């Protein structure tokens, strides 16, 4: 049985200077309750790994606006002007990573690989200062694994064994992030006793804590 805890208790595990991954593609499939709690607890100097920084008023975007993030690793920041502003002014260290590469770096960590070889970014600034390798005459960039202390993810239905299922396009980076962090906290729309095994997208073994939306 997984530990079902409050958002407050779960988020209080995260200390200043932690590295966190946050799931979601824009607002879709983002663990908004967990991020709201992080905003409330004012945890500082975070390194944040995410697909994007949504909008200034929404989940991950608020962490940027509140200046709780010192380093951001993301694929797209265009929807949140504040991220760009802080990047330009030097307040925020931003590492932009192609989305597919970001996902594979996280997957490599989760699956125990020493990195991946990708053709994405060959001949661009992404290649700079990285090792490259030719495989069967084609050039690839070597990308290292990327993990975190915590992953904050979303699940539509989660059962007491930590199994997670999804509705619609809410899966996005949640699935891969669940495999690559020391501690994984899932925010569930709904907690059920036991999911149909056919429905499960993330096996329960990856999950440490379950927070149910709507419950304090």
């Amino acid at each position: 049985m997984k530990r079902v805890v409050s958002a407050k208790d779960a988020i209080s595990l995260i200390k200043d200077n932690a590295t966190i991954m946050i799931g979601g593609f824009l607002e879709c499939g983002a663990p908004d309750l967990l991020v709201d709690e992080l905003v409330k607890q004012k945890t500082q100097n975070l390194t944040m790994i995410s697909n994007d920084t949504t909008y200034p008023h929404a989940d991950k975007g608020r962490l940027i606006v509140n200046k709780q993030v010192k380093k951001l690793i993301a694929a797209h920041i265009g929807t949140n002007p504040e991220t760009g502003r802080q990047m330009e002014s030097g307040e925020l260290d931003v590492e932009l990573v192609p989305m597919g590469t970001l996902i594979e770096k996280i997957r490599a960590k989760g699956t125990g690989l020493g990195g991946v070889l990708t053709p994405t970014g060959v001949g661009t600034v992404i290649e700079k200062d990285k090792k490259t390798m030719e495989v069967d005459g084609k050039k690839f960039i070597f990308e290292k694994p990327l993990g975190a202390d915590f992953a904050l993810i979303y699940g539509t239905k989660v059962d007491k064994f930590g199994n997670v299922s999804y509705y619609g396009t809410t899966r996005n980076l949640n699935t891969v992030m669940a495999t690559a962090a020391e501690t994984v906290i899932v925010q569930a729309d709904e907690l059920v006793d036991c999911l149909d095994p056919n429905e499960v997208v993330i096996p329960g073994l990856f999950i440490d804590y379950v927070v149910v939306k709507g419950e304090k």
Partner: protein
Amino acid sequence: MDLTAEKTLQKRQQISGYTTNPIFHSNKKEGLSKEKIREIIAKRAAKEFKEGDVVTLGIGLPTAVANYVPENMHIIFQSENGLLGVGKDQNKENIDKRIINAGGGYVEAAYGACFYDSQMAFTMMRGGHIDATVLGALQVDEDGSLASWIIPGKMVPGMGGSMDLVVGAQKVIVAMEHTSKGQIKIVQKCDLPLTAYKEVDLIITERCVFEVTHKGLLMTEINPMFSMEDIKESTGAHFKIAQNLKYMEI
């Protein structure tokens, strides 16, 4: 420039009367409306698809391409956030925020659609399983390299999934306005940071269509509202003109 082809064009223009028809030149001088430009480009891009193709559209103008697919043709639109079979926009009265497209718009899942995670999305995209992609660009050059994700010091949206998509898609179509506020976008060599090196196959603008060949750009179609001089003036890259140059449908 290929002189024979230019002569062929002149001959064709004489036959069709376009060079003597003042409407086309005056229209050009007044400028096409934004809507008309979008329509010309999107309509032309949609012609690149074949029955059953899986297509990923970029954000902005390329999204409009979906509106011009013939009704009897089945095209499957893929979205990098986890939807194969992007349907129409959701009814505004009854929004389900759990289904979006890559631009954050609320969409429906089409008949036969499926959902998946980001890892699967990029397996499709980078892995060569997408038949065609249509996307915009800030610059494209005569080698088929494109720049689309950063103007240093000005605008840094990030590359999102574009680098993976362009590297992996079977056919890469850049659909964009020929110039941007008078600035030339089709150049000899991109000076903005690249999205990908030598990956573009086709460039479609409101003025013409260029194929990217291993010998450089080849103009295959021209909008009859524009003269060859107009195109030359507004294009920074060298290009050749196809022997069988055609008119774009406008």
